[in-house]
C-alpha cells in the first residue's frame, strides 16, 4: 500500500493541523496562542500549496498566497499589535482543567472521524480522510470558543475555526471557486477589524477583556 509522496505530505500536514488545534486548546498564554495561530496558518498555506501542486489546480496557489498573507502575516500582526495596545500580552487564562478538555477533545475527534468515515469512502485518491480531520478541527475550535473566558482568545478560536473550514475547502474539495474564497477572506478580515473595535469598546466599558463580566443579560 504505497501512497504518493504528496499525499503523504498532505496527510502529515493535516495531522499537524489537528495537533496545533490541540495545542491551542491547552495553551494558557495569549501570546503563545497567537503564535500557534500563525503556525496554523503556515501549515494551512503549505498544505493548500501542496494540494494545488499535486492536483494541478493552479488557482489554489492564489489561495495559498492569500492564506500566507492574511493568516500568517496580517492577522497575527494585527493581533500582536492589539494585545500590545490593550496590554494583555502576558495575560494568563484560567481554563477548564486541561486533561478534561483534552479528553473531551479526543471524544470530539472520535465523533467526527466516525461521522466522516462514510464520506471518506467516496473521496477520490488524494483527499481521503481530510474531511474528518477538518471536521475534528472545527469541533475542537468550537470547544475552544466555549471554554475560553478572554475575548482575545475567543477571537483566536474563531479564527482557528475559520482556518479549519478553509482547510476543508482547500484540501478536501480542492478549493472553492475563487470568488467565494475571496468573499470569505474579506469577511474574515472585516470580522477581525470589528473584533478589534469590540476589544476597545469592551475594555472601555468593563475595564477588562474578561467575558465573564458579560453575563448579565438573562431572562428574568
Amino acid at each position, binding site marked *: *500500500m*504505497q*501512497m504518493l*509522496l504528496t499525499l*503523504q*505530505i498532505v*496527510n*502529515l500536514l*493535516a*495531522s*499537524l493541523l*489537528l*495537533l496545533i488545534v*490541540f495545542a491551542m486548546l*491547552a495553551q494558557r498564554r495569549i501570546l503563545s496562542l497567537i503564535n500557534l495561530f500563525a503556525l496554523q496558518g503556515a501549515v494551512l498555506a503549505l498544505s493548500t500549496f501542496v494540494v494545488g501542486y499535486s492536483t494541478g489546480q493552479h488557482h489554489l496557489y492564489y489561495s495559498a498566497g492569500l492564506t500566507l498573507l492574511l493568516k500568517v502575516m496580517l492577522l497575527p500582526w494585527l493581533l500582536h499589535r492589539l494585545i500590545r495596545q490593550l496590554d494583555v500580552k502576558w495575560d494568563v487564562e484560567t481554563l477548564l482543567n*486541561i*486533561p478534561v478538555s*483534552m479528553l473531551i*477533545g*479526543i471524544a470530539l*475527534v*472520535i465523533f467526527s*472521524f466516525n461521522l*466522516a*468515515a462514510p464520506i*471518506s469512502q467516496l473521496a477520490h485518491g488524494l483527499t*481521503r*480522510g481530510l474531511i*474528518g*480531520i477538518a471536521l475534528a478541527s472545527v469541533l475542537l475550535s468550537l470547544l475552544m470558543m466555549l471554554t475560553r473566558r478572554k475575548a482575545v482568545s475567543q477571537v483566536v478560536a474563531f479564527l482557528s475555526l475559520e482556518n479549519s473550514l478553509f482547510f476543508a475547502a482547500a484540501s478536501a474539495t480542492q478549493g472553492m471557486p475563487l470568488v467565494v474564497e475571496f468573499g470569505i477572506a474579506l469577511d474574515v478580515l472585516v470580522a477581525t477589524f470589528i473584533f478589534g473595535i469590540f476589544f476597545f469598546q469592551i475594555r472601555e466599558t468593563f475595564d477588562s477583556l474578561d467575558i465573564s463580566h458579560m453575563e448579565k443579560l438573562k431572562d428574568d
Partner: protein
Amino acid sequence: MIINAVQIPAVVFQLTQLLLVVLAAPLLTGWVNQCQAWLQNRSGAGVLQPYRVLHKLFLKDAVIAYNASWLFRVTPYVVFGCMWLAATIIPIIAVDLPFSRAADVIALVGVFALARMFGALAAMDIGTAFGTMGARREMMVSFLAEPALLMVLFTASMLSHSTQLPYIVSAFSRHQFMLYPSLAFAALAFLIVLLAENARIPVDNPNTHLELTMIHEAMILEYSARHLALIEWASSLKLFAYFSIGIALFLPYGIAEVGHWSALPLSILLLLFKLALAGVGLALFEALSAKMRIFRAPEFLGTAFLLAVLGLLIHFLLSA
C-alpha cells in the same frame, strides 16, 4: 513472515544480544552523562565511570535496615532480571530472536510494570518517609505513562498488524520510506514516556537528592552496596531497553534479517551508532529543558497520552 522453529543462527544472535545489552548498558549511561558534562562545560568523569561505580559498590558490604523484609532483599534481583529480560527480547541487532516470541509488546509493558511494582513495594517496606513518598510519586508517573506507552505500541501494532515485536520490526524495516503521521505522533509520545519512565529531566532528575523533587532516587535511598549496584545497573538497562524500543519502532533500518550472519557486525555497529546519537539527543534535551514541578508532570504525560491516541485515531482515519 513466519518465524519457524528455533534455528542455530537465531540462538547465536540471541546470546550475542543477551551479553551485549548487559555489558553495554552502563556504557550508554556513561555516554549520556559524559555528553551532559560536555554540554555543561565540564570535563566529566569519562564514559567508563558507571563501571567503576558498579565495581566499587559490589566490593562494599551491604547494610540493610533491621526491619527490612525478604521483599527488600529480593527486589534488586527481580528488578535487574526484569530489565535484563526486557532489553534482551527487543529485536535490535537481528529480527529473529527466539526469546522475542516469549513476550509481545503488551507483555513487555507488563515486565516493566512488574519491576516497578517490586521497586515501589520495597521502597515502602522500610517504612521511611522518603521511600513511601518516592514510591507514591513513581506510581503516579507510571500510572500516567503506561497507557501512553501502550497506545504508542498499539499504533505500531496497528500499522504492522501484529503485537509481536519481531513482526513489527521486520514490517517497518522492510517498508519503503513513508511518512506516517501516526507514527510521528507516536514517536513524540514515546519520547515523553521515555523521559518520564527513566527519571530524566523534566520529570525527574537522576543526579539530585533534593528531597522536594526527587522521585526515583527517593525510592532507592535505603539500598547500598551490591543491592544498589544491581538497581543502578537495572536503571541503565531500562534506559537501554527504552532506547532499543525507540530504535526498533522508529528507526529499524539496517537490522539483520533472519539468518544473515554477514549482516550481524554491520547491524551491531549501526545499533551502537544509533544509540550514541540517541544519547547525545537525550543529553541535549536535558541540557535545554528545566525540571518541571511535580504537579505539572500529569499534564506533561497527558500530552504523551493525547499524542499517542491522536496517532492511533489518525491511523484509523487516514490508514497512514
